[in-house]
């Protein structure tokens, strides 16, 4: 392990350890329990900033992570049993939905948005395309309760879990007693999702001096830095802001994006800048999945941008790109695929 990563890991371990000590001091039983569990560490890839979510009140343990994984893959979190988190967040698609524009939910319904990939979530200050969720721990409640997603009631989920002896055992292993409540459920899912860190793509290897870009990738990288990187900031390939990138509003969905959360007119049609990591796996693209290919996205930026009062100032003149430049950009974007992450058994469904 290199120096910076080691140091970052140490910092997180320190924070976690301090938090555990505080918890030990305040809540003796939980502290005793933590000592019986197996601590997990959170490794920050080289060059990444410290994550926003620090696990301060949620000390990482194998038992809580394992519980979170079981919950993530469990259809019982949905009303009819058919829609686990994993139904829209598939590992082979970097935890987006493979080849689906809008996600599917309960009773043959479409949602209004394209499920984003799940990786590097601990760096997000807010969640969702519109940033409506202000804390990663409460995010799962949104899909669980949305009528067109998992369509379930929180109390009903908790009752189903309580009725299963295996869950009672797992909650006891993770938290010291068989109490099953929404907080414990959410903290565990948060551990599972937050540990999905993607930072081992060819791009990362190139940055670490362990791989070299070919001439196309190198040209694409230079173009990317000149034309895309102000919003898709390295190394996370998003600056986590909300922007109107000139997509014409779908007249049926009538999705105004961030304005729904802030009630501010200037936020109309703004959506969170998505990360470009694993972009080859997460098609289709845009908040409503309207683009089937990266080329369509590039065409949008070079010629398709629609003007409107809240259009991002950086896009007023579009982003002119010729065919060769688009080709180079696509070659570069392919280096953001992290096969290690997509094939990481820690995140795969237990058979």
């Amino acid at each position, binding site marked *: 392990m290199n120096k910076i990563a080691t140091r970052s890991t140490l910092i997180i371990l320190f924070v976690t350890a301090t938090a555990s000590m505080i918890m030990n001091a305040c809540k003796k039983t939980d502290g005793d329990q933590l000592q019986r569990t197996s601590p997990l560490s959170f490794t920050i890839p080289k060059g990444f900033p410290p994550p926003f979510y620090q696990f301060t009140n949620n000390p990482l343990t194998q038992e809580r992570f394992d519980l979170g994984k079981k919950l993530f893959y469990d259809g019982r979190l949905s009303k009819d049993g058919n829609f686990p988190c994993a139904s829209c967040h598939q590992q082979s698609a970097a935890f987006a939905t493979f080849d689906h524009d809008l996600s599917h939910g309960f009773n043959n319904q479409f949602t209004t948005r394209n499920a984003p990939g799940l990786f590097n979530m601990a760096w997000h200050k807010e969640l969702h395309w519109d940033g409506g969720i202000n804390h990663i721990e409460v995010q799962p409640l949104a899909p669980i309760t949305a009528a067109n997603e998992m369509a379930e009631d929180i109390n009903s989920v908790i009752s189903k879990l309580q009725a299963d002896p295996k869950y009672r055992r797992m909650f006891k292993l993770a938290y010291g007693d068989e109490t099953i409540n*929404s907080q414990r459920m959410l903290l565990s899912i948060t551990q599972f999702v937050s540990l999905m860190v993607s930072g081992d793509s060819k791009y990362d290897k190139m940055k670490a001096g362990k791989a070299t870009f070919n001439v196309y990738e190198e040209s694409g990288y230079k173009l990317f830095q000149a034309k895309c990187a102000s919003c898709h900031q390295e190394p996370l390939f998003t600056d986590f802001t909300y922007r109107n990138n000139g997509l014409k509003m779908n007249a049926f969905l009538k999705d105004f994006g961030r304005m729904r959360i802030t009630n501010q007119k200037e936020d109309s049609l703004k959506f969170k800048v998505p990360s470009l990591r694993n972009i080859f796996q997460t098609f289709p693209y845009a908040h409503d999945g309207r683009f089937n290919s990266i080329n369509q996205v590039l065409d949008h930026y070079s010629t398709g941008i629609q003007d409107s009062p809240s259009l991002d100032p950086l896009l007023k003149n579009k982003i002119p790109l010729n065919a060769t430049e688009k080709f180079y950009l696509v070659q570069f974007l392919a280096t953001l695929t992290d096969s290690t992450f997509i094939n990481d058994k820690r995140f795969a469904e237990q058979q």
Partner: protein
Amino acid sequence: MRYPLHNNSCMVFIAWYCLLLSCQKDASADKPEQGAANLQVHLKAIVDGQPLIFGKIYKNAFGEDFSVKTFKFYLHGIELINSQTNNTYRVDKSNHFLINTADSSASYIQLSIPSSVYDRITFILGVDSISNVSGAQTGTLDPAKGMFWTWSTGYIMAKLEGNSPVAATPDHVIEYHIGGFKGTENVLRKISLTFPSLQKVDLKPGSQSMININANINTWFNHTHPIRISQNPVSMNPGNLATRIADNYSNMFTVVEIVNE
């Protein structure tokens, strides 16, 4: 400045002293063992001066019929004050209470406080902003209590649901879910209540007193701002309508009686 060093040391000393004081206060708030007494704060929903009957049809100030199915609200930051001596007892601000007047076990707050004489009560109606941004909570703040917006994070601080024939909604439902904790959308309201003339909470060690408070639902529709059901049968997110309704309902409480046992 002539004695900057002296002033600085003074400031540091004062800061430390304040810190010390605040620590002591917290400690005493947690364990009022010396001369502790019991205080119950009872909250009763009323309409037109009479106890609320769920499902019964009432008229608001605009002659609009309505009935109530659900009536709940959060409060925290309770303070008992003696306005003569300024002696104040503060309940730990992180303690949130969810009042549901339909459930007799959830319509009063049981407190253990230092025995003394108090003549005022204040509290904050709603859930403090920190709890709105702190992730998964449990106890009274468990999202499973149904007082939480899952799609745009935040607590529903007060909820009034029912029906009205003038509501142009499916099944003529009325739903006022009032929340918002940021900037101009903040619906947290400080409620400061005096006691009926000559009545005081007079607690001796080990004794018990009750403060009976009425919560008048009529105010939701008409106090500071007129809210007509026909125009606004539903409030489901933070914003101008929610803050106006919060302005209104911040006037709903009256202390009707103190009982010292």
